[in-house]
């Protein structure tokens, strides 16, 4: 993958928006990878949490937006608990989700959620799922 670096990437409005929503400073991450090491879903992500942060540090908005990583983060906070710098990758991935959801774009279509799930699943799963996947 070729990445073009420049001021317009490194200090883009998108990166500032992520920092504002998440309250995290991307530059604090020094890429040790403890987050990805502890992340239970990194195996299924296009880019693990460490890579997502690195791509954002390099201003790679398009690459990050296309990745499935944000929709797989369960918010278990293992990344944050094991980060020696106190960075919360979970908050950064939440900020990515929110940028989509706050535009009114849904990740899951409510109509397509299977009825057996709605009938049998714990209410907390339904409420939490809608909050994470629906605008």
């Amino acid at each position, binding site marked *: 993958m070729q990445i073009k670096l420049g001021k317009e990437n490194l200090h883009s409005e998108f990166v500032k928006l992520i920092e*504002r*929503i*998440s*309250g995290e400073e991307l530059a604090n991450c020094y890429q040790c990878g403890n987050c990805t090491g502890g992340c*239970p*879903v990194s*195996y*299924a992500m296009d880019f693990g949490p460490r890579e997502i942060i690195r791509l954002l540090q390099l201003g790679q908005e398009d690459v990050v937006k296309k990745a499935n990583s944000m929709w*797989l983060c*369960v*918010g*278990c*906070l*293992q990344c*944050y*608990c094991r980060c020696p710098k106190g960075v*919360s990758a*979970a*908050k950064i991935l*939440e*900020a990515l989700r*929110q940028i989509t959801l706050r535009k009114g774009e849904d990740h*899951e279509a409510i109509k397509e*959620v299977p009825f057996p*799930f709605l009938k*049998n*699943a*714990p*209410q*907390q*799963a*339904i*409420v*939490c*799922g*809608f*909050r*994470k*996947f629906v605008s």
Partner: protein
Amino acid sequence: MKIPYYPGCTLNTVAKGFDTSARHSAVLLGFELKDLDQWNCCGAAFPLTPDNVMGLTAPAKVLSNARKEGDTVTTLCSVCYNVLKRTNKVVRDDKEKRAVINGFIEEEYDGSLNVIHFLEVLRDKIGFDNVKKAVKRPLKGIKAGAYYGCMLLRPFEDMGIDNAEAPTIFEDLLKSLGCEPVEFPNKIECCGAHLAMGNEDVVTKLSGNVLSSAKNKGAEIIVTSCPLCQYNLEKSQQRLAEGAGNLQMPILYFTQLLGLALGQDEGSLGLDKNLFDVRPVLKGKGV
């Protein structure tokens, strides 16, 4: 002793056994869980977006109502506990956010409530030694894997119930009931949580890891304090049974096991709702 109690949505519906077993156990231990006069859903996820307080208004309303009934509130569901405790900290420590939240919910709540988990009631108010004394039916020889999951423990600086990497509160309770707690590597790993909506494959993988990790260490049952963990572990057992893996074992709420040990009437424990019945395991051990 009456302790104000927040049941939450799931314990009022699909996890009724969790609720009833705790209420009955409380009576057998000499206290009462008193429902809050008014409560609403906690929101089921602590918002990870510090730029917006809207997600904190629902739990703040719960806390504000609870404060009118005393200085403490207890809950059973790990997620409710996580959301209420963390919201309480925000209201207590962040004056600016407190003002905005109070404006929305039209209350004057200051964050002075003490949010404790039912496990903390047993450990700190009753004492595991006294729980042990009240046991009528010691669960001798039952090898139980204590599954903490995420929300009971993390983040440590907000939750503080136990060590976030090597907790023992569950095992300590299990020992007082006569069980043999089984240590297993995945006891603080995620079950897949809300990915149950739309991403079953990931849930099956994650919950499967928890199940096999416990089974490999000799667990015969798994004990949890989260209805979503319970659901995901059971559903994954069903899905894995269709393939090669046989990871079938009873997944119980810790209060169901507590109720059994205290000699509670089995009919009030909700055991029939569990996918795999724990009673044959008990019978096999002569309990």
